[in-house]
């Protein structure tokens, strides 16, 4: 009975209020709402449409050019053969070399900031420096890399100089992802380990770092993506040679990565088919890295839960 009564009151209330709620919106308000909604849909469709168009265009124009010969041989002026094997190898070398150096540096800096830094000002300056680094355009990295690594340190134009330049560029990326992940490690883990008598370094090594492995992996994926896509910073530091080398010799000599090769083929030589072949590979790699980053996130979320 009580429930019934309540119902009547409620419905009565809403009937009374209905006059106010159902009062039709004025023409202006209606127009505003409709226009804004339409605009939002329009812009979102444009954004997604652009992505679909660029991906489809590059893949459709590029995939037919990718043959086994294309990816497994070096270019030769003598035979007129065009192959991108050296560019693929150079890209792999430069990604590996950069990651090997930037990973300990970036994670170390993040560990310092979250675990050690007691001086708030110093921590603030370090974070500000990282933010500044992530805002500097790649062409400036290229110039400074050329001046410092190639000329001052005497590395010449080489993949190693390029990799070192990319280390500086990617330092903030690794640092930020590692830092965010370190913050998610519960304080109680650390306290538990300290309570058992472990020193700070031991706690970091055995408790903190193993628990933020997902952030480190995500950082690696992001950094790999940036390195794959980078070209302006490598133009003057790594150069554009197309010779097949092993890792050691490769790092010491100049070489074009896939992006630089794409630029040279498209802009300087007008070989658009080759350029689209490379572009298709780059776009496919971008897709794969995106999916990988997502999967890593999902995997570790499940593992945590």
């Amino acid at each position, binding site marked *: 009975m009580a429930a019934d009564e309540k119902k009547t009151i409620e419905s009565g209330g809403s009937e009374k209020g209905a006059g106010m709620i159902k009062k039709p919106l004025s023409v202006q308000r209606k127009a505003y709402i409709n226009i804004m909604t339409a605009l939002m849909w329009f*812009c979102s469709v444009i954004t997604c449409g652009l992505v679909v168009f660029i991906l489809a265009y590059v893949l459709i124009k590029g995939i037919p050019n990718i043959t086994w010969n294309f990816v497994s041989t070096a270019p030769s002026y003598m035979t007129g053969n065009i192959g991108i094997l050296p560019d693929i190898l150079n890209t792999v070398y430069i990604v590996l070399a950069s990651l090997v150096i930037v990973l300990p540096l970036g994670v*170390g800096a993040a560990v310092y900031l979250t675990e050690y830094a007691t001086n708030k000002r110093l921590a603030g300056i370090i974070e500000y420096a990282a933010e500044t680094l992530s805002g500097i*355009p*790649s062409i400036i990295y290229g110039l400074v890399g050329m*001046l410092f690594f190639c000329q001052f340190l005497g590395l010449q134009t080489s993949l190693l100089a390029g990799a070192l330049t990319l280390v500086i560029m990617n330092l903030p990326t690794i640092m930020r992802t590692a830092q965010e992940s370190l913050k998610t490690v519960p304080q109680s883990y650390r306290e538990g380990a300290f309570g058992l008598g472990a*020193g700070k370094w031991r706690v970091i090594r055995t408790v903190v770092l193993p628990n933020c492995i997902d952030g480190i992996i995500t950082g690696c994926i992001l950094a790999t993506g940036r390195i794959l896509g980078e070209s302006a910073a490598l*133009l*003057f530091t790594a150069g554009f040679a197309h010779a097949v080398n092993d890792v050691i010799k490769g790092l010491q000599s100049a070489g074009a990565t896939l992006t630089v090769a794409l630029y040279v083929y498209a802009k300087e030589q007008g070989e658009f088919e080759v350029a689209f072949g490379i*572009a298709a590979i780059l776009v496919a790699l971008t897709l794969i890295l995106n999916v990988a980053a997502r999967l890593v996130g999902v995997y570790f979320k499940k593992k945590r839960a």
Partner: protein
Amino acid sequence: MNRHKIETVVHGIFLVMGLVTIACVLMITVYLIIAGIPAIREIGLIDFLFGTEWASTASDPKYGILPFILTSIYGTAGAMVIGVPVGFMTAVFTAKIAPFKVRTIIEEAVSLLAGIPSVVYGLVGMLVLVPGIRELFDIPDGASLLAAIIVLAIMTLPSIISVSLTALEAVPKEYEEASLALGATEVETYFKVSVPAAKSGIAAAVVLGVGRAIGEAMAVMMVSGNAPNMPDSIFQSVRFLTTAVASEMSYSSGLQREALFSIALVLFLFIMMINAALNFLMKHDKEN
């Protein structure tokens, strides 16, 4: 005692790793200043910044970078005029209206857009945009400021969308509920309550976009035509600050090379100002 020593050493190592970022920023600043000052001294600051003619390889070389500065400013402004409304609307849609599935699709699209290498944008621009502009406006060459503006607008979309999205998400639910309870419709609430509440975050998104646009080199180099003209019209072949450095670096020497470093210094100063603005807005956003 021994353990204590290890701890101190490890602490020291991590401290050094933390200081590497500061060292890098200092190194970049110092190198750019050292490399950039000599040419400015020789050419004269006023002649360098406000000279309207760049003819570095002429017998009587001229080193005026006003065309590059103006092109960079116009190009960035143009990219923002196109990119900000589109990015902003997409962000509001994604944050407030889109159903979960649509939202996931848009987020994925945005992260792909951010991941596509700039040379790929340049390549697509060269083969789609440049001929398109040439035919549409019936001009001899489509490689122009307009093409660069469009490419930059697309390339800055992901930064604009993702930063504004984060800002819009952070708006307290109570604000929106209060507005809805007062009789505003959902769309009105989003634009008249949520957006103003997230305004410094959205401003930060725009500033970040400006930074991205002004620093982009390769994609712009492939579509802008690269002639050192004053940007009198959007159909002109132009050179940006970034592309001015990139296009002559490989064969430059002497004063010409030094002048290129000076251009990089000017670009760096622009970026530092943008960074300061960004930092200010982000802090402002956090405090609110």
